[in-house]
């Protein structure tokens, strides 16, 4: 049973992003219309099928992952940091919330935003190419896990950030390059052996690959292993979140 005290910061977070669709949901919708139009329709028509799928269909899972984890990360990091910056994070901090409830609220709401953005991107993709989900359970589990994972990482970022530039650096210079080199726009099979091996060090590869398996039924790697590793990493990140909040890192003097 989720207590009223635990539910309230979650509801507050959800209300915050739901009431500002121009800031939260419209940007990824517009960005992905552009991605699909340019990479899928304009350029995709000139690119051969990859692993038996039209290019526009092949890149769809990666774009869903990119949008979902970016938004999950951004929501948690921004919300925590903005609250710290303006000190209104004191409102929940001075309340009788447990440290776990505090983390669950911010991570849960941020993960939900990531999932909603993922669904919006899938809806946009549906306008450009047919979608039929091949492994629904794998898709749902993976999407939930990676959104929770990146919400948890966003929380760490929000706790350690010293100004808004730090948030930009995390998103633009770490997250996006990892996703773009995470086999969103190509199959690992097209890479030379060296770069294929290097790519396997990138955790995004496993996320994109598993979501692609759930959606298209195609995978370069082993989905079960990827899901298991992601679950383990996510649990570790959440434990770190709770520990940091309990220690008051970035929150208390």
């Amino acid at each position, binding site marked *: 049973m989720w207590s*009223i005290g635990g539910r309230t910061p979650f509801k507050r977070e959800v209300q915050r992003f739901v009431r500002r669709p121009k800031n939260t949901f419209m940007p990824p919708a517009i960005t992905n219309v552009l991605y699909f139009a340019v990479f899928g329709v304009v350029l995709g028509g000139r690119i051969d099928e990859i692993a038996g799928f039209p290019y526009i269909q092949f890149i769809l899972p990666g774009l869903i992952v990119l949008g979902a984890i970016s938004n999950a990360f951004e929501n948690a990091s921004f919300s925590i940091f903005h609250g710290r910056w303006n*000190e*209104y994070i004191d*409102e929940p901090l*001075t*309340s*009788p919330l447990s440290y776990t409830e505090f983390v669950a609220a911010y991570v849960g709401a941020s993960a939900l935003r990531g999932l909603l953005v993922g669904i919006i991107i899938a809806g946009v993709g549906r306008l450009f190419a047919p979608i039929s989900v091949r492994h629904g359970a794998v898709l749902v589990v993976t999407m939930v896990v990676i959104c929770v994972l990146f919400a948890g990482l966003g929380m760490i970022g929000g706790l350690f950030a010293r100004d808004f530039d730090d948030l930009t650096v995390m998103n633009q210079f770490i997250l996006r390059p990892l996703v773009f080199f995470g086999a969103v726009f190509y199959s690992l099979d097209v890479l030379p052996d060296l770069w294929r091996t290097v790519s396997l060090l990138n955790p995004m590869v496993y996320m994109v690959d598993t979501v692609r398996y759930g959606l298209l039924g195609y995978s370069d790697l082993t989905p079960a292993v990827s899901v298991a590793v992601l679950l383990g990493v996510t649990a570790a990140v959440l434990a770190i979140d709770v520990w940091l909040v309990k220690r008051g890192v970035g929150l208390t003097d």
Partner: protein
Amino acid sequence: MPPAIETDRLVKEYGDLRALDEVSLRVEDGEFFGLLGPNGAGKTTFISILVGLVRLSGGSARVFGHDVVDDYREARDAIGIAPQEFNVDRFFPIKEVLMHKAGYHGIPHDEAERRAEEVLQTVGIYEKRDQRFDWLSGGMKRRLLLARALVTDPDLLILDEPTAGVDVELRHDLWEIVSDLNDAGTTVLLTTHYIEEAERLCDRVAILDHGSVVTVETPADLMDRGTDTIYVTLDADLEAPPALDGYVVDSWLDAGRLAVQVEDGGGTAPRLLGDLDAAGYEVVDLEIARTSLEDVFVDLTERTGGVA
């Protein structure tokens, strides 16, 4: 009933700086307690430890018997705090901000809404309930901080400089609201720079300086520590104060008048008049300047090296 606040050798260190140096205080349930001290004395650090915004470095603190570290949820649930800083959620209309705060304390939605409206009426900004914090005037922002502290119906109300920078009308409004709450049984911990405020409202005050408790007394007892000055106009021109032994702390000439510093002006004046009469002086006028709590405060904090 355990005391509302009980700290035992509470310590807070920031690197080499010792902001609180073994502070032991006890505030009884239902008391109106003042925490006075110059800037940097450790007042805000003390109350921030109680609500979990500052981690203590040593000692212990309990709120209604609940340790602020081990039983932090029970301790925080008992406290409503109106801080110095405007640390209010900017994203939502103020009524929703209050409902959120109530919700964090486990109060159901409908009850939270009822309480939010009630406290907004209490502090006089109900008509602004749908506005966001940034659009309120400075005085309204201060009122909202009090409303937020009250919305959870706390047993311990902590007010950190609640009337700093507010006009006289608002100051009196706040005093009245807080006094009524205290009369109804709420324990109040007040930090303030306004000595008059402490003198008027508090049952007891602690003077804090350089992180240490200098004294804990009632305002009346504190004032008794100070000295009064009796100004006497005589019909003779004096070149030096006459010899007055036994009860005089100090004496001097002040613009042609004899100034006599004594511990109890009212009680000493008849004896002084008698002594002057016996010495052949005729007293034309007499005025007693009572010591103020502010004088005592300045004296106590200067004695410990503080800056009042």
